[in-house]
């Protein structure tokens, strides 16, 4: 809370900097803005930036580094016997001190010594806070004075301000690159740690997946096998079912909407299909797990089939419905991109509408449609919530859609939810799976975009 108030104070200072700078600029030319290099407001922004940027940068740095520095100082003040503890025990001890200082529950008996260190810790934190406030305020005021001092009719304030703006724009456009780098680095790094424990060949081509790692070496049935083939098979099975639903329905409805439907129906139905696209996946998952899967099981029982309550069919079907609007809007785009002249040529030769669509438009749009379907497949592979809620956990290597299978995304979620330790192959396996997922979807996207772009050039 105090941080928030302090940030507000800094903001007030920055705004004050704006007015000070502007009035100063006006004063230097005795109220004749024509003699200034830039508009008076730019001098205001100039001073405000001088005041705000260094101060906020320092504040951010301080907030980021404070915990580490204070902890270091705390540890160095501890008695030697404590300092020589192994890192994990030391961490627990420091945690206790921190909890005691914050008034939380402590896991050990509070002796005077611990109380003293906790008080020391509180003191350190207090000193750090006061120092932070003083330093940042000093920097802000120094910046303000310096900026104001620099204001003169010859100062190129606009150029300076515009430079800062341009730097901000460039920085924000590199965020996309930074997050890609972040994804790749974190996945590769953690997966690399996984592969030091499990051989990549076993991982990529193993036929058995049971990620429980034994607590003791002699424990039965808990060896931890990390073969991802069953997961891949399950993912492919569910995505295949999904595409069996989404591809024909999405394609046919796109054709109907773009070629047949009267405008009135189109304006009515199109938003409704968009609603289907806007429904969160957790809602589809809820529906798949609690309505579709149980009814499939009942129907199966009625005709004497044993359908698992987490059947791949239910998850795949609902996932297919989720992808319908995706397929239909992409196909709609490519179908309407086919030049009208081709349709008219076909009609002129006496072909019916459906013949035109099947023999002329569809072949012409095929590359684009294939690209769209590839994008849809990549969506299906990366989809998480539907399968987490409706598909199974056990890794069965089967092609029977009535049985439960598991997928890559389900395993990532189950491996990571609730688990905090970061050394076991169990949690690291999730990152290896994530890397596979990332590579596969990236590959599909690159191919799809290439196909779509190549096709687009043909007609434009």
């Amino acid at each position, binding site marked *: 809370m105090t941080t928030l108030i302090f940030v507000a104070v800094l903001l007030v200072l920055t705004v004050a900097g704006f007015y000070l700078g502007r009035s100063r600029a006006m004063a230097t030319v005795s109220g004749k803005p024509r003699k200034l290099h830039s508009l008076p407001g730019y001098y205001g922004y100039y001073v405000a930036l001088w005041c705000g940027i260094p101060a906020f940068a320092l504040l951010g740095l301080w907030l980021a580094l404070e*915990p580490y520095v204070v902890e270091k100082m705390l540890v160095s003040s501890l008695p030697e016997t404590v300092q020589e503890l192994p890192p994990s025990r030391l961490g627990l001890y420091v945690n206790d001190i921190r909890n005691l200082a914050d008034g939380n529950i402590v896991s050990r008996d509070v002796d005077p010594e611990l109380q003293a260190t906790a008080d020391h810790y509180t003191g350190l934190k207090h000193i750090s806070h006061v120092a932070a406030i003083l330093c940042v305020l000093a920097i802000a005021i120094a910046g303000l004075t310096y900026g104001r001092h620099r204001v003169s009719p010859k100062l190129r304030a606009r150029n300076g301000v515009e430079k800062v703006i341009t730097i901000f724009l460039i920085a924000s456009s590199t965020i*996309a690159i930074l997050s*890609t780098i972040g994804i790749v680095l974190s996945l590769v790094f953690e997966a690399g740690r996984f592969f030091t424990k499990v051989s990549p060949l076993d991982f990529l081509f193993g036929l058995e997946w049971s990620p429980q790692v034994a607590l003791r070496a002699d424990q039965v049935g808990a060896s931890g096998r990390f073969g991802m083939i069953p997961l891949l098979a399950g993912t492919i099975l569910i995505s295949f079912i999904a595409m069996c639903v989404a591809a024909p329905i999405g394609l046919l409805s796109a054709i109907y909407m773009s070629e047949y439907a009267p405008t009135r129906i189109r304006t009515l*139905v199109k938003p409704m299909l968009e609603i289907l696209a806007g*429904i969160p996946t957790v809602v589809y998952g*809820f529906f798949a797990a609690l309505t579709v899967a149980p009814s499939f099981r009942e129907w199966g029982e009625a005709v004497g089939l044993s359908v698992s309550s987490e059947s791949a069919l239910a998850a795949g079907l609902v996932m297919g419905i989720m992808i319908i609007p995706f397929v239909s809007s992409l196909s709609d785009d490519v179908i309407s991109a086919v030049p009208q002249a081709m349709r008219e040529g076909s009609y002129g030769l*006496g072909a019916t509408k459906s013949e035109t669509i099947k023999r002329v438009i569809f072949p012409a749009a095929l590359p684009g449609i294939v690209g769209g379907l590839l994008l849809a497949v990549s969506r299906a592979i990366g*989809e998480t919530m539907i399968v*987490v809620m409706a598909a199974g956990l056990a890794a069965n290597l089967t092609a029977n859609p009535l049985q439960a299978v598991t997928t890559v995304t389900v395993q990532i979620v189950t491996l990571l939810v609730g688990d905090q330790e970061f050394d076991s192959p169990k949690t690291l396996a999730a990152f290896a799976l994530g890397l596979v997922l990332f590579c596969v979807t990236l590959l599909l996207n690159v191919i799809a975009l290439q196909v779509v772009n190549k096709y687009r050039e043909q007609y434009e």
Partner: protein
Amino acid sequence: MSNTASTPSVTGVLDNRRASAAVVSSLKRRYAAEKRFRAYGMIAVGFALIFLIFLFTDIIGKGLPAFTQTMIRLDVTLYPQDLNPEGVTDHEQLLKVLSTANYRNIIVQAITDLFPDVTSRSDRRALVGLVSPGATFDIRRQVMAAEEAGRSLIGHRVRILVHASDDIDQLEKGHISVDVAEAERRVSDREIEWFHRLKERGLIETTFNTTLFTAGDSRSPELAGLWGAVVGSFWTMLVTLALSFPLAVGAAVYLEEFAPKNKWTQLIEVNINNLAAVPSIVFGLLGLAVFLNFFGLPRSAPLVGGMVLALITLPTIIIASRAALKSVPPSIREAALGVGASKVQTVFHHVLPLAMPGMLTGTIIGMAQALGETAPLLMIGMVAFIVDIPGGPLDPATVMPVQIFLWSDLPERAFVERASAAIMVLLGFLIVMNALAVLLRKRFERKW
């Protein structure tokens, strides 16, 4: 028909006749095929629409019962020896004592008074089980409110509405079939009998379920509420908006207005397009590895959730913003540059205001996408069981879609109902946001 020769020969005419006869005879088949094909299209659209309607009716049908809650009207006697055993008189002190007093005894007393014939220990325990464990809060709230208002209830006999237990609630709503064998249902025969006796005396009441909209999560379905998740979603969205909007607009403005056409900007563009297609769970892994493990930010905090969701929504908003900037005609820029504005002035004073409605539409759509996102938040620990309402972006919190996920996993039917109700609330938010986006587009759309 197919003859293009300028002087038709006799065989040509014959061929023509034969050909047109073939065409005429095939027409029926072709028209049938035409109709069939058209019907396929209609069936496909119909299937999607029927599914949509089915989904909505299913969820509304499941969720509606969660909006009402069965309450039991109890006559309780608020004995001073239960509430204020030490006889505190000071107002402040008394409030403190009352907030921790033992209300359990009062409820036990009130409910056993209603059934004097129930004497055995186990029966009595089952009898007390008719009311929710949260009933103590119902009484405490009323007693404290009266005390603060200056009219003490201590020593009086008052009628009070308390939450019925989950099983009784389900029984009242007709979700527990009495025809099933006793061992196979959640309520026993004697509980049903007690319930009917309460009902005959008019002590069972159904009210609007305010708990659902005011409380945080709970292990007892009748006390579980969505408000904690709504507030958590609010903080998360606030962080997402604060990060993604300026960054996305900045990136779009740079790429569209300033960037030179070179390898670097091409790389950025390819990156943005690819990021838009990366599965959201991979962003969750990024958040876990970078934000939590590397930077040591707190688990389960809306701050981290918002940061991850901001990365997910960035491509959406960037792409929409670039489209909005593209639609501003170059004549505006040329006119501004012509009267001596700098490049930055042109963009910020003239182009950006005109593109803003389109950018805001894109932002709202991106926010709607982020509001429904679940998977990446599971990775960064926003699935914890959290009772308290989060007070800021650093408190542990959960969000609406994750709450739906958590509730739908629980065995109690009442939680599934609440999950459906939560879906209705979430969809309500999404519909409002999308309607806003459409409105914005309609209101400010400009044809140049």
